[in-house]
């Protein structure tokens, strides 16, 4: 079985429009639908939920995460 998502760039192109979990270095997690992102790993999310220590803290319709916040992982 061939995987379509080899390099980080290909992975990101495949994951746009899908539900993602974005973990920041600070420990805060954001769940939402990935609308787009750029080379700085700035990220735009829709239907965003903000999770801190496993608790839902906030909901945003649209959210922009600046890439300098040390985005750790997306899935």
């Amino acid at each position, binding site marked *: 079985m061939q*995987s379509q*998502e*080899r*390099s*980080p*760039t*290909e*992975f*990101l192109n495949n*994951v746009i429009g899908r539900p993602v979990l974005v973990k920041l*270095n600070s420990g805060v997690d954001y769940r939402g639908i990935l609308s787009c992102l750029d080379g700085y*790993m700035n990220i735009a999310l829709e239907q965003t939920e903000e999770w801190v220590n496993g608790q839902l803290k906030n909901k945003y319709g649209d959210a922009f995460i600046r890439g300098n916040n*040390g*985005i*750790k*992982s*997306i*899935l």
Partner: protein
Amino acid sequence: MAMSATNQLLPLELIDKCIGSKIWVIMKSEREFTGTLLGFDDYVNMVLEDVTEYENTPEGRKTTKLDKILLNGNNITMLIPGGEGPEN
């Protein structure tokens, strides 16, 4: 004595050889990952599959299973090919 250029293995070549196999990633912070390496780029951002995340806290180690992740290369300190993780 210096090795000839053909015998040298550059760091990124070593990681390239790891594609498709298990790798253990240690971050700057108290965090580690193991998983199958699917690919990486010039920044050593990595795509990993069947991942276990280990968070080392004063209360103990917290593990999280993740299906498929993009890991930002900015905070990586060490990569261990074939690494079975901190538990063994």
